[in-house]
């Protein structure tokens, strides 16, 4: 205040307060916003509502009623970073004969005839600085439902876990879920062959 008063001697204390207080508040708000952004970025965000999809695909019919394995459609899940979406051609393996009278299947058939891709809306999305590899988790016998919930009952697929850093760490620290090494000492929380906790395992 005294410094400002030296530069602006004609202003009253009340007038100076009108300048200083808003500036302080805005500075604090900006710092808070940055902190929140960093937190949200690091945590993977919150549970988002189910997006609207171009075709109302029903997981409960496919994975539930017809017991189609997740890997049948999400073919990259065992071998790569991404679970991958099935190609239109792959949907047509079955729907060239099944359910052609259904309006949602007709949307699919139209895409196939037009040879156009389907533009889905993502349900799950991790921050860009996170490296997540599906196949590593499948190899460690982590079931799809651990992160994605029981999709056999889901008519509309939506996010069921926030997938923030805390949730990742919960599993990575939980040695009960990990393959055990018989030689591992009992008092060692992080077993030799459990999920790694190094920052660089998940952070790019």
């Amino acid at each position, binding site marked *: 205040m005294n410094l400002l008063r030296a530069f602006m001697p004609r202003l009253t204390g009340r007038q100076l307060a009108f300048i200083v207080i*808003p500036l302080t508040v805005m500075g604090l*708000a900006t710092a808070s916003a940055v902190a929140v952004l960093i937190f*949200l970025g690091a945590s993977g965000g919150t549970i988002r509502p189910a997006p609207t999809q171009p075709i109302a695909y029903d997981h409960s019919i496919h994975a539930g009623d017809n017991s189609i394995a997740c890997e049948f459609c999400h073919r*990259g899940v065992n071998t790569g*970073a*991404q679970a991958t979406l099935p*190609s239109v051609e792959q949907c047509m393996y079955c729907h060239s004969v099944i359910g052609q009278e259904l309006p949602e299947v007709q949307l699919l058939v139209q895409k196939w005839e037009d040879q156009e891709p389907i533009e889905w*809306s*993502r349900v799950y*999305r991790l921050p860009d600085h996170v490296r997540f590899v599906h196949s590593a988790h499948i190899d460690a016998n982590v079931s799809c439902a651990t992160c994605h919930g029981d999709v056999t009952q889901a008519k509309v697929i939506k996010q069921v876990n926030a997938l923030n850093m805390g949730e990742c760490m919960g599993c990575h620290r939980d040695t009960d879920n990990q393959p055990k090494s018989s030689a591992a000492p009992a008092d060692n929380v992080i077993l030799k062959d459990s999920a790694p906790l190094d920052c660089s395992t998940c952070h790019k």
Partner: protein
Amino acid sequence: MQLGRRKFLAGAAGAAGSVVVVGCAAPERESRVQSFVLAPEQSLPGDSVWFATADAHSRFGNSVVVRTVDGRAKKVEGNPGFPINQGKTDVRAQAGVQSLYHPDRIKEPMIPAGTRGDGRYEVIGWERALDMLVSKLGAANSFQLITSRLTGTEAGVAAAFTELFGGRHLVHETVENTNFQAAVQKIFGASNTPHFDIGNAGVVLSFGADFLGTWGSPVMYSEAYRQLRGGERGRLTQIEPRMSLTGASADRWIYVKPGQEGALALSIAQVIVAEALVDNKIWREAVDAIGGVDVLNLYAPDVVTGRTGVPVSLIQTIAREFVERQPGLALAGGPSLAQTNGMDNGAAALFLNLVVGNVGRPGGVIPNPPAPGNIPFPLPATSFADWRSYTTGLAAGSAPDVMFVYDADPAFGISGTPTFTDALAGSPFVVGMSTFMNETVGIADLILPATHPFESWGDFAADPGPGVQVVGYQQPVTVTWTDARSFGDVLLTVAAEIKGEGALPWSSMHEAVRANAEELLGMAGTGPEFEPTWVELLRRGGAWKLQNTSKPFASVPDWDAGAMAEPEFAGDPESFEFHLIPFESVAIGTGDESENPWLQSVGDPLTTMTWITWAELNPKTAAALGVGTGDVVAIDVRYGTMEVPVFVSPVTPPDVVAVPVGRGRNFGGRWRRDRGENVFSVIDPAVDVKTGALAWASSRARVRKIGRTITMPMLERVANPRNDGPEPILEVKSE
């Protein structure tokens, strides 16, 4: 409204909160994700998948691995296990990705929208295109197929198709190799290219063969050159009328008067024999076969020094060095063989290998096994003399009912009158199939888009090979983004439509290539049992170390040195004082890849010139003409005139004007058309007197200053080829 302190603070806090909320939301577009319509085979999103396949721009023996991501080709590298290029590539192989995704590719079948060749086209679908082709060919009484030097199964399918329809197959090659093949036949009795073991040689004597740039298999020879120079350093002497990349790398570069290369080679042989530098048991039989010592004595150094322009002492030095630093290896190619006595020049040069007994041993000339019967070497080109008479016949009315031109451009490369374009005017129905538009396809009645090599099946037998049989495979690394089809598949479809299923033994190129692979490995007809082997073949990119069935060379040459022809030149030396020496530049070569801006902008190794055609002149000659680098001159040849800018080069001989081939296109995409001049359109249509090959370096020329100067697109000194100057050269955008 009066703004109180509390209201102000509340507003400020709200604004800050909005900033936080807006900042947290990801852009909507980032939440969208598309599924493939057709998922690329073996592809995982974001992961690289590597496919071994044939080098897109080399028909003669390189294999590459192409990195694909999400089904799209991203990068080309050499196939590390392949014995020809051994993991290396050249600039053309690297540019394969750009030609694959080139926006100027022919994308759909088309017919002329106006008159033939006026450059306007109407797109038609494949159904209509095939209907046209089937109806025309089904009713045709005569059929002719014109292609480039097809290789492997594709050549086999083309041959079977031509035979089925009783047609004739002509093979066009812009810079003809006929004389080299004829010389090899004469000296070694071999019908395929031998292995020149440069890597293990002590001294290499190359008569015009730019083996580091454009001759034979430059990637393989470049690796051999590394071996030559490693360890006990081998020597390289290059003899040619225009300094090539190999010449620039040589220990000694010698200018020999054009057409006198054979005389110089025999003179070297004469020194070796006369000075008894080699035991006469080694050379006696070979020398007797070509006419004896008496004939060689006609080429003694003091006799030929005048006509070759090479001093006596230098001829003697070369001869002695050739023997002292054994094994001595002699090669021939390029402009030395593009004379009216080109075959004789080549034979005389290759004969030196026999004089020093450097045949069938490391560091020498080693026989290559023949191609596997079902996977032929690149087809030999139809000689220029035959092309000339064919063109004249076309103009006179002997055109076939259907002419099918694939991946060849005789309208660009055949000099003389009538031009191929004019001769084609009377042809009732011309089909042109190519990946890119060219002069011949542009004037066709039906234009078909051909797949890029990265999109189709094929195979090749490496020529030249490394002394063993090497077969490479070409597999699709990506699905075509155009509506193109493979040439072989179109032929097989048309044959089945007209002659019925089973008219040819295969239904697709994939089936044909696989069937030939089964036969190659002695597993014909094994079907599913062959599958693991087939997958392994594709993974490796080919098969080699196959059974070596090389036939030994003939014991003596079948060539008469006494009948060696003297060179003849078009134009008298008084009026046309320069030898016009066309040459291939490393990047765009004969111009087949002039579509490609990457290759257009790769500087010629000696001049750094890009994008245009130029004329290399000696500094003294240029000074006498009053021109410097960038000044445009007219080059008058007996058959025409071209205007090109001068590049003053201290290594250009005073009586030579050297001009690169490959540019000066009238048809094609934005980076091909109207750039530079076509030297083949003005050269004299003279041929080798013994083989009929085009003597493309036998023209004489006059050079005139015309008082115009341009900014030269070169990497040094004058202009800026990076395209940020006042006149942009290159603008890359899709249509």
